[in-house]
């Protein structure tokens, strides 16, 4: 503890934590997701679908036991940091320390480097999977909570935003979300987890949808109205018939997670961000 009740955290501890999380998240599919896949094997009606789900479970077991990434697309490193406001970082720049952790994790951990330096003209691989996509929030207290969520391109490319009129209501939201999943079809490697953001602004709603994916499969929004909407959307999506890998079946999505925020009187932004059945993320508290 430093003076004035500040807690000092050395940025090298952040680097070490990020490095470990990058490797571990890619090899360990969250256990709530595994549980949902196991239940889906029991309920799926399509024989091809059941076979696919079994192979997916076998894959996730091999990945965990042998320390091999569950999917070869080890993604862009999404890094979410909640910093207690009484924390003082020492030893260097926090953002540089995070990127150093990603660099070490992806190069030393045999993960794929999937970033290009320039989106349009050069498109040269940066060679070490940096830069990470970093979001920092200031919260009360002295903890530093770090979440790494590697995000593959296949599912991310199927995202969408709509600036709906408030009059569109619940039906408008449902229609947009279900249509997004339908359009995505087999591309995001179903069964998927559907992250939905509602409210905020154009930029904020996308982040809400992404953060919704950090919630475990099977959890619900604490607001009962939104929790009910999550259930209804899941049921609607599973009527689409897309099924495991899009070969047809009942298990198109494992969960729908919604996060919402207040918004302007004239607006109702909605965003959809998809995760595949891998959808990795891991958290530590320093």
């Amino acid at each position, binding site marked *: 503890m430093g003076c004035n009740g500040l807690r000092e955290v050395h940025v090298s501890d952040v680097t070490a934590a990020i490095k470990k999380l990058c490797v571990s998240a890619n090899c360990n599919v969250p256990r709530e997701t595994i549980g949902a896949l196991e239940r889906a094997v029991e309920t799926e*009606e*399509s024989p*091809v679908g059941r*076979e*696919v789900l079994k*192979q*997916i479970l*076998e*894959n*996730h077991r*091999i*990945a965990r036991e*042998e320390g*091999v*990434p*569950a*999917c*070869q*697309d*080890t993604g862009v490193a999404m890094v979410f940091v909640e910093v207690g406001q009484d924390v003082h970082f020492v030893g260097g720049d926090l953002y540089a320390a995070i990127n150093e952790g990603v660099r070490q994790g992806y190069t030393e951990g*045999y*993960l*794929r*480097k*999937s970033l290009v330096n320039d989106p349009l003209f050069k498109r040269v*691989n940066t*060679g070490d999977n940096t830069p990470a996509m970093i979001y920092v929030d200031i919260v009360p207290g002295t903890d530093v909570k770090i979440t790494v969520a590697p995000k593959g*391109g*296949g599912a991310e*490319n199927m995202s969408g935003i709509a600036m709906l009129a408030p009059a569109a209501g619940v039906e408008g939201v449902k229609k947009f979300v279900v249509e997004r999943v339908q359009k995505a*079809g*087999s*591309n995001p*490697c179903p069964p998927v987890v559907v992250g939905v953001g509602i409210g905020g602004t154009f930029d904020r709603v996308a982040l809400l949808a992404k953060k919704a994916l950090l919630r475990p499969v099977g959890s619900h929004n604490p607001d009962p109205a939104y929790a009910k909407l999550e259930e209804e959307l899941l049921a609607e999506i599973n*009527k*689409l*018939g*897309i*099924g495991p*890998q*899009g*070969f*047809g*079946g*009942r298990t198109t999505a494992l969960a729908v997670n919604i996060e919402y925020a207040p918004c302007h009187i004239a607006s109702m932004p909605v965003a959809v961000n998809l995760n*595949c*059945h*891998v959808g990795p993320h891991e958290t530590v508290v320093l």
Partner: protein
Amino acid sequence: MAIEISTPLTDEVVARLKAGDNVRISGILYTARDAAHKRLVALLAEGKELPMDIRGQIVYYVGPTPARPGRAIGSAGPTTSYRMDSYAPVLMEHGLKGMIGKGSRSQDVRDAMVRFKAVYFAAIGGAGALLAKCVKASELVAYEDLGPEAIRKLTVEGFPAVVVNDIYGNDLYEEGVRKYRVS
């Protein structure tokens, strides 16, 4: 029961495969993603030779993770195929018989499969750890500068895949979804 097939694929084998069939592939797969396809198609346009003979062969759309020491390959599941749609018909015209990826193909690609008698298989997206177990050897063929997107020759045994598009114009994605859709 899965159908065992091996490369190079003959017209007789290709003719037997129907959308929805489970197969286990043994033999050679050539890896290539968008960047490598772009170069291959450019070579063909200039009338030059390709770095490998694609006649009767299967291309696997994959960009694996780096191999740990002592292993043939890292995690190696399929990537989304539509990004190769604009290049695939030319390769089939030059004798390519199979493609492995995930996700549906354009009408152009499907027409080319009927015309040039080639099939499209899907492997399970996100099953990179499981599929890597079927890869016994991996050898660099071309374009090392592309990193994970370089062309590699993989020797595989019992590689699991499902026939999505056959030479008769069938499409498993369309048929499967139609069957289970509740309207």
